[in-house]
């Protein structure tokens, strides 16, 4: 069964600093991988996704993620964090193109210091 681990529950970075949020997945075949962001009291917004091709994926709001099969990782990065990036970030894995049984990690809460 697929699963996702986000090792960091809470991360604090200074505005303008770089950011990396970790995500490790467990799945036997090639996974579909996603990063979503959730602001307080809001639904989930898709930042980026990977399902094939180039292992470095560009997303919205200046985020990118790199798929590393050998490490079963899909870490999210941003070179310079803005105060508006403060939110909860979720990594998710889906088993294929026709199945919405996505498994989410527990989330990483990002705090941005001025």
């Amino acid at each position, binding site marked *: 069964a697929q699963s996702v681990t986000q090792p960091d529950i809470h991360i604090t970075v200074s505005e303008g600093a770089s950011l990396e949020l970790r995500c490790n997945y467990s799945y036997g075949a090639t996974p579909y991988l996603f990063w979503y962001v959730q602001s307080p009291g809001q639904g989930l917004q898709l930042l980026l996704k990977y399902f094939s091709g180039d292992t470095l994926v560009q997303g919205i709001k200046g985020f990118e993620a790199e798929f590393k099969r050998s490490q079963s990782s899909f870490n999210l990065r941003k070179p310079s964090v803005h105060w508006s990036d403060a939110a909860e970030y979720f990594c998710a894995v*889906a088993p294929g*193109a*026709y199945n919405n049984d*996505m498994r989410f990690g527990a989330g990483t809460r990002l705090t941005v210091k001025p």
Partner: protein
Amino acid sequence: DAGVTQSPTHLIKTRGQQVTLRCSPISGHKSVSWYQQVLGQGPQFIFQYYEKEERGRGNFPDRFSARQFPNYSSELNVNALLLGDSALYLCASSPTSRDRAVSGNTIYFGEGSWLTVV
């Protein structure tokens, strides 16, 4: 284009009652999924419906049921509510299978329905 819309946005129910949550997918999307997000946790998959048929079910008790209508909107029903059912219930829609094969399994979430059971 309108996104995924859910109603109601907030509601409070008493233990033992029943609740119905509603979802309208993005226009053209035929697949609807439901997720439960308990405070402090990631969303958990409850159901997927495609073309009005159940295509997947998560590890939830039979108190949870859903259906999809001919216009692809969906309802989630929860009977005999427990305190532990208090959560944000998220609806998500995704394109037809042919489009998804091209664009990948991208699903789009609504803002959710906050259910509090007291």
